[in-house]
């Protein structure tokens, strides 16, 4: 049983997930203790909600999800080793990431399972979800029409589409496997709103506009993030809001564009013609922001922006 020191009573979903994760990955207990060591009451409420959703999405694959998170942790350490030795991500082109990651269905399945679990275990991931829901979705105009590009595990898309303020939600992705994965996730979470997920490449985006756009953890996967930001500017209505989330110093198998500081990313967004309504910097688990900056550790950069 996971001790109540780590997970307080009244949080059965996160408790169940932590128990499974530690059983599969006992060496990770110390990390998880650190991760949950200073959570506020509101933080516990939120993570319990997200844990309930992750349990729904994982379903009978819970053991597999936890095992794949363990696998992902090993993969990330390999990428970290390369990054610290060279100062660069291993890959620099989409073709390289496609050959080593996207075109390998078994690996992609493990990767997506691992990322699902990371939404709970990596403090910066959970904080970005929370920022998205509380500061972006719940502050959008009532009846907002929403687009997410690259919805992946589906949690951001679910939070948007399940909001009572939402009028319409859809998503675009370039991968059939990812689209299937997102559909599964939304069904598992019992989303009642119909959400259309289309196979559309951002760089071939149709001539449409939206009042709300989410672009979470996509920029670092692109060779030309500036081009993507220019298209997002076109897609956003003049009175619309953009949520953007990308990590700095975050080696991963398919990360190809390295942002070295939050300021580098923020300047790129401003230069694309956006006004930054709010910014949230979330360092990786166990790090203060100051220490993360000094040691060039991973920092998730969340931005809510409007057209300038």
């Amino acid at each position, binding site marked *: 049983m996971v001790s109540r020191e780590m997970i307080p009573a009244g949080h059965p979903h996160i408790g169940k997930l932590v128990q499974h994760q530690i059983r599969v990955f006992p060496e990770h207990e110390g990390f998880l203790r650190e991760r949950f060591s200073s959570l506020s009451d509101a933080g516990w409420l939120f993570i319990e909600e997200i844990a309930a959703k992750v349990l729904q999405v994982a379903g009978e694959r819970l053991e597999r999800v936890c095992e794949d998170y363990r696998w992902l942790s090993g993969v990330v350490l390999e990428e970290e080793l390369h990054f610290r030795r060279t100062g660069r991500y291993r890959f620099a082109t989409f073709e390289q990431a496609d050959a080593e990651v996207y075109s390998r269905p078994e690996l992609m399945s493990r990767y997506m399972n691992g990322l699902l679990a990371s939404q709970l275990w990596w403090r910066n991931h959970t904080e970005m979800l929370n920022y998205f829901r509380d500061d972006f979705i719940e502050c959008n105009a009532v009846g907002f029409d929403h687009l997410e590009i690259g919805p992946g595990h589906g949690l951001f898309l679910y939070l948007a589409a399940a909001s009572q303020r939402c009028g319409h939600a859809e998503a675009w992705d370039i991968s059939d496997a990812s689209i299937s994965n997102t559909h599964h996730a939304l069904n598992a979470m019992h989303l009642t709103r119909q959400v259309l997920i289309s196979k559309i490449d951002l760089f071939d985006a149709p001539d449409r506009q939206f009042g709300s756009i989410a672009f979470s953890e996509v920029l670092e996967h692109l060779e030309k993030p500036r081009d993507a930001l220019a298209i997002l500017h076109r897609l956003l209505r003049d009175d619309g809001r953009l949520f953007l989330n990308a990590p700095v110093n975050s080696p991963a198998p398919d990360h190809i564009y390295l942002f070295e500081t939050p300021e580098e990313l923020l300047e790129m967004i401003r230069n694309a013609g956006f006004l930054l309504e709010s910014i949230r910097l979330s360092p990786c*688990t166990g790090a203060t922001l100051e220490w993360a900056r000094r040691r060039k550790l991973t920092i998730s950069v969340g931005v809510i922006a409007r057209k300038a």
Partner: protein
Amino acid sequence: MENDLERITTIVRNLFDEYEGPVTPMLSARDVAQWNSLLNVQFLVLVEKEFGIQFSSRQVAQFKNIGELMAALQAKRTPQ
């Protein structure tokens, strides 16, 4: 070997700046709050650069304490 420990101590003090305890061959990640698996990689790469050597991926994951690290450094210097 003594010089090795001094050089490793400098790396430990710079990287794990909240740790004020002694740096001995018995020191391990358990003793240092900031020393998690990601920082372990960063620590070992700093040691690689300081000593001009490279560990295998398996070694990076396996050192239990500073003493084992120092033994590996010594082994890399000893002609096979």
